[in-house]
């Protein structure tokens, strides 16, 4: 049985995506896959028991039927932290190793997903390197790369890992396309010179950054006023229409794949957005637009959704959604797998783990 811990420098760097994509690819190779996220930090209630949202999603996507209590044996709750701070012994290590041995049974490969960022959990002794060393498995680090400062972070992370665990290598994620030359010609060779294996460079991807209109509707508890049949489209950006219509047209034209957030009483902005064929119109403040505007939106096939919150609140929620969208839809899953296959040296990762893949 081979195993690897997938960790990251920062939150939202792509750990779940990597677990899911690699899991899928290894599974296609006929291997029996196991998955764990030992410490759950995004807690949800599934059928009456707490579990982690990421792990629940990946479990389903990879068709894993191990019980949730083994996939995510530890929940990052307030009491867990308080106990750790007060020095109350919780036997976390035991729960971790018991769960791991349950998951590992009859598996060829187990992917262990870290929690938040690499150092998170140090206070209760379960940072990612702690977990890796306790389970005796190597680590794979995924790092978002948007500027050279990512190199600093990576070098720092390598120190944190130190002697605790073995770093198999890293994946650079969400690299801006414009930095392609710099990254491949300068950054990767630099890291390799430092003895850090780079398994691949994954570039920013529009599909993955975007969010379905239906997700926005769900998150905002919004009412769909127009085009309920067009919510399966992806939105990549959002724009806030608070300026004069003449300026709004310019902004919207520059990014028409956007959702435009504006007040229900701003008919001018609404029409500017409809005219520029934006992806959807989000009206804040629970103010219904005029019938004529709705009619135009319907003719253009642009969903109009009515959010209850005020503009500021709506912006905050949408901002959180875009870029941090959870991977639930098949389009995104397929896209991730495609990206990994094209940009990662999968055989090298397999080799590091001691797994043989069929060609």
């Amino acid at each position: 049985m081979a195993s690897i811990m997938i960790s990251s420098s920062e939150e939202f760097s792509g750990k779940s995506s990597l677990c899911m994509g690699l899991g899928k690819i290894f599974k296609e190779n006929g291997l029996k896959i196991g998955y764990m996220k030992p410490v759950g930090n995004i807690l949800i209630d599934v059928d009456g028991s707490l579990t982690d949202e990421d792990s629940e999603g990946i479990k389903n996507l990879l068709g894993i039927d191990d019980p949730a209590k083994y996939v995510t044996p530890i929940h990052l709750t307030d009491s867990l932290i308080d106990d750790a701070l007060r020095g109350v012994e919780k036997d976390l290590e035991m729960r971790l190793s018991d769960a791991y041995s349950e998951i590992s049974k009859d598996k060829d490969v187990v992917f262990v997903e870290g929690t938040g960022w690499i150092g998170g959990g140090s206070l209760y002794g379960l940072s990612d390197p702690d977990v890796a060393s306790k389970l005796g498995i190597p680590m794979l680090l995924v790092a978002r790369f948007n500027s050279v400062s990512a190199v600093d972070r990576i070098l720092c992370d390598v120190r944190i890992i130190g002697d605790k665990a073995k770093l198999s290598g890293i994946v650079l994620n969400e690299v801006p396309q414009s930095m392609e030359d710099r990254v491949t010609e300068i950054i990767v060779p630099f890291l390799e010179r430092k003895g850090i294996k780079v398994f691949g460079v994954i570039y920013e991807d529009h599909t993955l950054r975007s969010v379905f209109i239906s997700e926005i509707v769900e998150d905002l508890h919004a009412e769909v006023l127009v085009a309920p049949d067009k919510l399966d489209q992806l939105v990549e950006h959002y724009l806030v229409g608070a300026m004069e219509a003449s300026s709004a047209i310019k902004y919207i034209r520059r990014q028409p794949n956007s959702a435009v957030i504006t007040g229900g009483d701003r008919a001018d902005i609404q029409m500017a957005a409809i005219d520029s064929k934006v992806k959807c119109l989000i009206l804040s403040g629970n103010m219904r637009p005029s019938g004529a505007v709705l009619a135009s939106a319907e003719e253009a096939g642009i969903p109009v959704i009515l959010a209850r919150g005020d503009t500021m609140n709506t912006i905050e929620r949408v901002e959180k959604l875009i870029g941090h969208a959870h991977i639930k839809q098949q389009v995104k899953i397929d896209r991730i797998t495609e990206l990994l296959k094209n940009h990662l040296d999968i055989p090298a990762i397999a080799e590091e783990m001691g797994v043989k893949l069929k060609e």
Partner: protein
Amino acid sequence: MLEKMFNPDSVAVIGASRKEGKVGRAVLDNLMQNSKLKIIPINPKSDEILGLPCYHNILDVPESIKVDLAIIVVPAKLVPGSIDECGQAGVKNIIIISAGFKEAGIEGARLERECIALCEKYGIKLIGPNCLGIIDTASGLNASFAPNMAYKGNIAMMSQSGAICSVTLDWAERIGVGFSKFISLGNKAVLSENDFLQLFENDSSTAVIAAYLEGVKEGPEFIKIAERVSHSKPIVVVKSGRTAVGSKAVSSHTGTLAGSDAAYNAAFKQSGVLRADSIEEMLDYSRAFSVCPLPKGRNIAIITNAGGLGILAADACYYAGLTIASFEEKTVERLREKLPPAANFYDPVDVLGDASPDLYEYALDVVQDDANVDGILLLVSPQSTTDVPGIAEKIATTIKGSKKPILCNFAGGTRIALGEDILSKHGIPNYSSAERAVASMDALCTYYKIKNHKRGDPEEMPADREYARSFIESASKNKRRVHGLESMDILKAYDIPVVDARVAKDLHEAVEAAEDMGYPVVMKILSPDISHKSDVGGIRLNLKHADEVERAYNSMMSDVRHYMPDAIITGVQLQKMMSGGKEVIIGMDRDPQFGPLLMFGLGGTYVEFLKDVSFAVAPVTREEAKHMVSSIKTYPLIAGVRGEAASDIDSIIQTLLKVSQLVTDFPEILEFEINPLMVMPEGQGCVAMDIRFTLNLNE
């Protein structure tokens, strides 16, 4: 076209009613004013209405009766069914008065689309829905539910607002203005202003076209049609929604994106449409056109019985760009012969407070004979000895027979009312102030020029369209919407001179490029995310040697990263530092109604604040391009002030024409700006220093 819509032999009213207060009754009443008209009420619950045989359905009307026009007043949801039946019955003209269509919301918009489809299917011409109806005074048709019937006249009026139709009709009745045709446009589902402009063009009873519009449906088509029509008949338009708040109301009311007011101004100007600011002004202008011959120039004579009024009128003339005429010698002599010695014999002519009707008439006769006078303003103040009705009566005949326009301002209230009535009886407008009379005189003068001016076709500018096409295609492929400095090459395809520039990816390349180009140089940041480079420290001027280039490069990167940490920086551009020129801007915004709206203005930091810019809808003619340059207030700064050398204005005009061609050739370009275009002294051309444009990649 539309002959039977406005002059039908038989009209069916679908939804006719005998109940007072119902629209179906009001329409019947109005139709019945014309005894020659065959009126066919349709109502499933009646066999007779107001003594007329009523059918339950239009399909029940005997074949022997050919229905020329159907007026539909039933609730919106029943309208498509009614149109379908009309179609089957062979009715070709329909007016839908009923509301509840696109203006009301999604369901209404669906109904409206259904109506449009049915009209297409049966080849039906449709006015409305959501309108007041139409009136044709020549045929005696009142197919509306308006409470007033229009007087006969030669003004054709159309209005996008039913309420403004009512306002205008009511007002017109009070001041005695007549109309040839009166059309409430409603939602313009099928027929719109463009169709009616063409109708009025060929309508012998129409001499003047007036319109209240909230928007136009097909901008470029409107320009084409209006440009042609304005050569034969004056078109006066009130276009509302000029301001941000106004256009918001238009959007909310009609579900359309109101185009910019600058675009309307430009389109109206280019197509010879006279813009009025209010309904009052529209009626003022229309009445002047309705009765007056056109002045051949802008030299105006003022005849007054009060010095004060004359001065006010003279000031108003000045502001309107009208000239106070210099009389021929014989005019002054003839005035001297009969006017009292204390009178003023020069323009403004003061006939004095006690001037008799005869004296007014004499002065008017003399002045209108003067070859230097193109138009006359006749002012009357009600002084104690003034015979207001006498003057009105006396001059009315002269005015009607004059070959020059004479506009009256009987100023006052109670004491001039009688005079005003007399003028009105003769069909002569009275303007309540000198300013209103002057504004209308200005409209007459402007229209004389429009009528006699041939716009000509925009010339085709040579260009390497293949190159530009491939450039845009590759941008589309890379999903690049917003372009800046790095895309300057597109200008070369249109032979627009571009500053000598190099792109450098790093400091090393930057220094190398500068050394190669020769100093001094300008360094600009290259980033698709940064539009206002100078705001984030992304421009460094006048770098004279390698050290300066290095310092500028390093401090620029530091600045830019500080202000915009997330911006993607692809490098820097080095340009040859230009001096001795003037900066101007040439831009384009694609207007939702009219398409490419070209903009010209003086460059520099204050341009956004001063808003001293001119506009025109592309493609522009050379004359329009010239006018764009010369019409900004700061034009003297380019033309050369106080001994300063003139800039190469020809090269600006040439560049405007090229940009006009570029944005006409490629509708994908949504916005475009050369800023600055450095204009060198006369004969030395101009160079584009920076650009920015946005492409539409939706398709």
